[in-house]
């Protein structure tokens, strides 16, 4: 996805931004990314449609984490009980009932760790360099739409964005 130029459109509302994305999509322009100060559902829907994304892959990691945790819990509790058979209060050496609590907690713990690590991993965090086109206002009160395009398409794209309600559109060399 290469382009000679990037256009940075900033929007006051996410509605407008989403509209612009849809317009771009119709125009078969998909080389773009957005910035927003909060997770806007509108933008997300529009972007998903463009990219054909389903739900976030974070779910699978969480699932895997949860299973790993539960398994770890089982192995750790039963395994350490068998490692050294100590009778406490006449209970069986490996008494599963009380171990369920540990298994449950470890399932949660590993699931949570899976969620957070996959979130970082999949979002490219920690990021050490800025994405192209980032403006500080995109973290505060503006929605940004950055499109990579060939020089020739710039005018068309700018028009599309302005039609959707872009406050301003800036052209930058990519």
């Amino acid at each position: 996805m290469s382009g000679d130029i990037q256009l940075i459109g900033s929007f006051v509302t996410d509605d407008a931004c989403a509209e612009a994305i849809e317009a771009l999509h119709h125009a078969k322009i998909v080389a773009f990314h957005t910035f927003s100060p909060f997770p806007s559902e509108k933008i997300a829907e529009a972007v998903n449609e463009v990219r054909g994304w389903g739900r976030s892959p974070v779910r699978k990691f969480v699932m895997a984490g949860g299973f790993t945790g539960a398994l770890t819990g089982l192995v750790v509790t039963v395994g350490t009980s068998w490692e050294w058979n100590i009778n406490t209060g006449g209970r069986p050496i490996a008494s599963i009932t009380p171990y369920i609590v540990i298994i449950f907690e470890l399932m949660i713990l590993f699931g949570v760790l899976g969620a957070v690590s996959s979130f970082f991993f999949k979002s490219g965090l920690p990021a050490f360099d800025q994405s192209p086109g980032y403006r500080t206002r995109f973290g505060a009160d503006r929605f940004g739409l950055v499109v990579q395009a060939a020089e020739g398409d710039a005018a068309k794209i700018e028009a599309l964005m302005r039609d959707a309600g872009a406050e301003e559109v800036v052209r930058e060399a990519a």
Partner: protein
Amino acid sequence: MAAAVEPSNIQLSYLDVDRTAQRVMAPAGLKYWMWVAFCAFLAALGGAFWTRQIYEGLGVTGYGQPTLWAVYITNFVFWVGIAHSGTLISAVLLLFRTRWRTAVYRCAETMTIFAVVTAGLFPIVHLGRPWFFYWLCPYPNERFLQPDFRSPLTWDFFAISTYLTTSALFLSVGLIPDIANMRDISIGWRKKFYTVLSCGWQGTDRQWRNFSMAYLLLAGFATPLVLSVHSVVSWDFATMQTPGMHSTIFAPYFVAGAIFSGCALVLTLIIPMRKLLQLEDLVTIWHLDNLAKVVLFTSIVITYSYATEFFVVWYTQDPIEMMTFHERLFGLQGYMFGIMILCNCLIPLFLFSPRIRSSTVWLFVISIFVNIGMWSERFVLISGSLSTNTMPSQWKFYVPALTEVLITIGSFGWFLMNFSVFAKFLPIVSMTELKDGIEWLRKSGGERYPYRKAS
């Protein structure tokens, strides 16, 4: 304050949210630092007495047979209980898509973190040999010895540490976009500080997509976790055969109590905070009103639990249990039971009145009473039940000594100090979610989200 809930016609912009957050985090004045120093002093005092306790032994406390658990475990349960409202407000209400949480949840979550940290200290303070507390954690060692996973204390260790990890991660994940925002508008050392903490967040669509899913799943995990943690804490007692504790009702009863005391402490903290930091725009009476309703509801739930406890004991006619409950009411420390009923069951009934629910002063006072009441409840359950145990010859009532009192006060100092410092350096209201909230407000016509200027 005439009307309870007064719609405001002031529309906040995204930048207003930012400005308010920045104002809170503006460089602190002398008063703030004096407050922090005061809290730090209390914490240090508690710490000094803890040091002395470690050095000389637990004998410096008022502990003895048969009340081998008393103030420290009371504090532990109290703080764990406090810790529950945070996750509840942020996670459960997130799952239920309850919008009023946005203004208060960060505050509640922060409270959770520091309450868990404080709570986590108490089992260690309470230990006879605190320097070996890590033996509760399974780790490879030459002795081939591991903890006993049957013990409720091991469950506790796992539950509390999972809870701390989860809520810390939950808070941190939620903080990242806000910190990124702070990074963009700060200068100087703060800029560097926030740059590191923000991990390079930029709010791209890809990031938000994963963020939303991760955040939702964290909330999904936190919800059963929050229920399990306090259930596990309650099983510390319920699995004991000690009369007065050996009861199956404990898990739901403790969870309700935790939410009750947690929401009350959120009120206690947020009422002065919104005043001092001029957050009335963001945290409105409407928020407080909702919190108060939760407090009222949980108060009724625990009143029912108390009644059930007594009923079950009466119904079983177990003489040992009957005697313990008799002593709980009429024994030497029956007044603690009185305080508990007054503060937990009777005083919250005032919250039925919308006028009281909309008065910050009333809410503040009632929330303090609720916290006193919940502390008393744990004291009655723990120290009281152990005092009147199975062997009449071993009955003895417990009176705290200076050490416990100061360590308890110190824990409040420690908690408030951490909270205050956090509020100064990290966004105590969630800017991201509030902006999201504004959007929602705009769409819903601005009526259900009334803003009020400071009166």
